[in-house]
């Protein structure tokens, strides 16, 4: 493959290429177009977006070997790169992937070209900077998923906020300043506690390696404090109830591409954090506090599901739907201990974790797709209000077919990716208790209610007003991006086995890790 050639020629690993190629591409865009003025069009603009597309597509192509050359039989890290970075503090440039991070990196590299295409003709001011922000963001997100050194992870984690902050703040809607501040404060406050926990773990272990942290014995008190510090950082990102209120505002104000990346990838960082840090580093605390996590997850499913029902703004509705769906992720991750307690066996723990992972990947596709759909409508009528639409199918039949497909996927229809995660999590949660599963399964009704009711009011019906009457159907470019995501949604739903297989070894390993107490070796 191409990447191994570059690897051989430059002595750089695949993961490094994936992290730095888009960042360099973004910087190139910024430097080359530093004098871009608002409203500038023509050759420069075309060059900018083609360059952005080329870099993002190349990144995706280079990321494919992560999948094809992945050894699914082992939970250990692969494509490892390890160099000293700050010797004094034993900080390393340490990258690697396992069955959890590899699919998330592919999700990122798959969606970035789509986001570039989504902004193709729409972004009129500071185009070069817009595309640059997304490329840099892509590199940093890949860095988060690939970093195995906690400090390196933290650097990527925090640095990622900056392009996202800029994307919402510069290309956002009317209340973008309020939304960015809320977004920044929430997420930044969360991460500060995480930094404290990471430094504490460094002081105990003498290393910043996340894998070393995972093997470190800790007392219950230590674990609980560390768990809570992590919880703050990750719960905000997921987001879990009650630290979720930044998300609807951020989505509403973000440009389409920003919403897509925010929902599809950024939220996954929270779930990934739980898998990489909380569960294996503090298993006993996670066990102690599993009741809390399960409760918050179920609140997300039921409470947020009901809130989504009454939203009048399409983006807000999808944002709330995201929170409800992400509830399944945390539910699947934390239900294991209750299964162990109730049934006395470990059967079902891995199913919960797999289900949570499936839900993350699937939600990346579906929420991304729904935001793209809203973007297509918004580009035409400049409104996100459900009440401003009605009967879109009459004027945009092709687009409507896609929107209905994604809506049904959001409602968890079997055959789409939306079903897989929810199905597995519900199967697993039942073992922890009937009523947990009962509450979780209400998503079947609530999810269908809020999504299809929106579809009824927006897509179906007679043409509601002159605006809708004048709509033109989706362009070739728009159909292409919707079709690409639709392929992902259907592919994952009809045949999830390949993804299940690459995750299996890592999932089983984690399921084993979390049942092994770390108290024994701790003082």
């Amino acid at each position, binding site marked *: 493959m191409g990447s191994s050639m570059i690897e051989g020629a430059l002595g750089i690993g695949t993961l490094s290429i994936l992290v730095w190629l888009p960042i360099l591409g973004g910087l190139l865009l910024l430097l080359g177009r530093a004098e871009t003025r608002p409203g500038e069009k023509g050759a420069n603009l075309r060059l900018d977006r083609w360059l952005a597309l080329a870099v993002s597509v190349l990144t995706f192509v280079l990321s494919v070997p992560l999948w094809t050359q992945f050894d699914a039989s082992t939970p250990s890290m692969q494509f490892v790169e390890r160099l000293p970075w700050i010797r004094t503090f034993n900080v390393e440039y340490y990258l690697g992937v396992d069955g959890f991070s590899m699919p998330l990196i592919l999700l990122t590299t798959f969606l970035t070209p789509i986001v570039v295409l989504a902004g193709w003709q729409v972004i009129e001011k500071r185009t070069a900077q817009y595309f640059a922000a997304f490329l840099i963001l892509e590199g940093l997100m890949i860095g988060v998923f690939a970093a195995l050194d906690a400090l390196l992870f933290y650097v990527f984690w925090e640095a990622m906020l900056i392009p996202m902050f800029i994307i919402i703040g510069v290309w956002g809607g009317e209340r973008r300043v309020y939304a960015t501040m809320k977004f920044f404060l929430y997420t930044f406050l969360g991460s500060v506690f995480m930094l404290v926990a990471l430094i504490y773990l460094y002081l105990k272990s003498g290393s910043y390696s996340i894998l070393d942290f995972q093997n470190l014995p800790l007392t219950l008190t230590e674990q609980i404090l560390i768990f809570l510090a992590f919880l703050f950082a990750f719960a905000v990102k997921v987001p879990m109830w009650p630290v979720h209120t930044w998300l609807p505002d951020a989505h509403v104000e973000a440009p389409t591409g920003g919403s897509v990346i925010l929902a599809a990838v950024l939220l996954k960082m929270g779930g990934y954090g739980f898998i990489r840090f909380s569960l294996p580093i503090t298993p006993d605390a996670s066990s102690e506090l599993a009741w809390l996590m399960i409760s918050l997850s179920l609140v997300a499913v039921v409470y947020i599901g009901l809130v989504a029902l009454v939203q009048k703004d399409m983006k807000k509705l999808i944002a709330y739907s995201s929170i409800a769906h992400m509830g399944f992720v945390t539910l699947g991750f934390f239900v294991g201990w209750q299964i162990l307690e109730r049934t006395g066996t470990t059967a079902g723990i891995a199913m919960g974790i797999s289900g949570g992972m499936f839900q993350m990947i699937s939600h990346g596709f579906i929420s991304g797709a729904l935001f793209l759909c809203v973007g297509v409508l918004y580009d035409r009528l400049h409104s996100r209000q459900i009440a401003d639409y009605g*009967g879109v199918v*009459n004027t945009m039949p092709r687009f409507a077919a896609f929107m209905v497909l994604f809506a049904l996927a959001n409602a968890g229809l079997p055959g789409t990716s939306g079903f897989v995660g929810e199905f597995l999590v519900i199967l697993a949660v039942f073992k922890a208790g009937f009523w947990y599963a009962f509450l979780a399964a209400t998503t079947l009704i609530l999810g269908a209610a809020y999504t299809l009711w929106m579809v009824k009011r927006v897509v179906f019906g*007679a043409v509601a007003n002159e605006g809708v009457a004048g709509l033109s159907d989706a362009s070739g470019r728009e159909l292409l991006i919707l079709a690409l995501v639709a392929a992902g949604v259907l592919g994952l739903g009809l045949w999830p086995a390949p993804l299940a297989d690459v995750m299996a070894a890592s999932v089983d390993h984690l399921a084993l890790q979390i049942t092994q107490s770390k108290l024994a070796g701790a003082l």
Partner: protein
Amino acid sequence: MERIYLAIVLCPLFAALVAGLFGRQIGRAGAHTVTILGVGASFGLSLLVLKDQWLEGAAAFNGTVYTWAVVDGVTMNVGFLVDRLTALMMVVVTSVSLMVHVYTIGYMHDDPGYQRFFSYISLFTFAMLTLVMANNFLQLFFGWEAVGLVSYLLIGFWYTRPTAIVANLKAFLVNRVGDFGFLLGIALILMATGSLDYATVFARAPEMSTQTIELWSGAPWSVMTVACLLLFVGAMGKSAQMPLHVWLPDSMEGPTPISALIHAATMVTAGVFMVARMSPLFEYSETALSVVLVIGATTALFTGFLGVVQNDIKRVVAYSTLSQLGYMTAALGASAYAVGVFHLMTHAFFKALLFLAAGSVIVAMHHEQDIRKMGGLRKYLPITWLTCLIGTLSLIGFPGFSGFFSKDALIEAVGHADRAGATYAWWCLLIGVFVTALYSFRMYFLVFHGPERLDAETKAHLHESPWVITLPLVLLAIPSAIVGWPTIAPVVFGDYFGSAIMVLERNDVLGELAGEFHGPWAYILHAFSAPIPYLALAGALTAWYLYLRNPGLAETVRLRFRWLHTLLMNKYYFDDFNDKVLARGSRGLGNLFWQLGDVLVIDGGLVNGSARLVGWAAQVSRQLQSGYLYHYAFAMIIGLAVMVGWLLLGA
């Protein structure tokens, strides 16, 4: 045979994709040709499978097509189980579907969504076949939701009609309530047996029946009872049993061909099929079977009453479908699965016939559906009239017609069941016979006999439908009339189903009755010694008297029992309850959580509150930074003094 099974499923799917994606290129004729060929091939091959299974006694096939996923040691497959139950269902589904495909050419010929419609009904056929041919719970759920999806798309086919897009949303959501229970049932079965495959689960049923589960502390329930009840909730949704029946009458907003195919003959019987398929589980739970029996019988009677007051021709048939589904369900509850499925089959033919006949009337009447504006159509629509009469006679169980054999055996089986609720159920079903005949003949007389109440305009254009419409009517009238003769002996009282349906010795009511069965002729004669045919006759005569002979009396009765009429017209207020309490309540709760929880407490209190706290703290600390040097110097001196003092004292 494996390739044949695959071809049976994939032909309609392929046709649906071609008609759906390339509808514009292949045109209208192309769309109906490819889909009819697809479903026709399916039908032909299904007949082959039936012959293989029944006449040649082939062993049941149980095999995997592909592995969907392996998670946590649980293998989830897509695969087929083809035994005699499946084979029967396959033939019923593909034959009715084929008739409906042909009929659609005539019914939808000037509709702009012609290709889309053909694509949908072929897709439905594919989904229904995956459902009945599944060999595991995962695929069952796939098919289950897929038929629901196509039903959703087809009820809302005329998407500009406000009523249609309310009805399809309602249908989907009510079905989702059923699926909610269904999914939990599947989860419990996985927990109890560690597998999703029918064969493994059924093999472990006896041991599963001894396990218990605590739903709330101190109250152990039998795992089998809970699992079966949860599965049955799914069946209640799909097969429209009370109180989840509310979506079916509204589904009549869809075009008539799909009312026949989906909302009468096939999809709505999926629940009945599923319970019959799960007989190895249900047999181990008396409680669950009693619930099935009582709910089925209640639905059979009380939705029948509603049929009497309806004036929309399709809605009368729809309520009749609800009522007949109740009969089938009651049979399942009596452990008489075979007769439940038998009634499913005869009902598929005569009810599809009745719907298609109603559609023929609607086309002739230029889309007028109110039976009060019809009358005397017999001489204008001779084929429609005759086939409709055959369908009606079959529905009310007129001796000799297919519906007679299935309904008579069904009621007898329930009467012999020894189970809590069986007596109640038997009475419901018996009274139901009278009610069925009453509403059926009320519609029949009001449409085809009596004075012509149509307007002159309609009358001038009134003529029999084209052959693509009448041919399916005739082809469906034949099995509606006679299919019971050759089939009752093997299917109900014989060993047709073999191991496909499992009945415990102590529950085997049909086995008991089989001893008294001496062929169809004797069965008809024997029937006259029971009240059933007399009740049917009485119902038909009452309809004749009230609606033909003495029409004024019907009005008098209505005025006399106004409260009853109001109750029935409002459908026992189920819709009002759902709209005003459940739907409005959910939205109210959503608004409360949003405005009170998110906006007021979390954003207003916590987020902006902490922002205000920070602001306040900044305000206070700003006072400290006054900018006067002597303030700072003073503070430093005090600080120094405190530190020194603390060090001295502490030491």
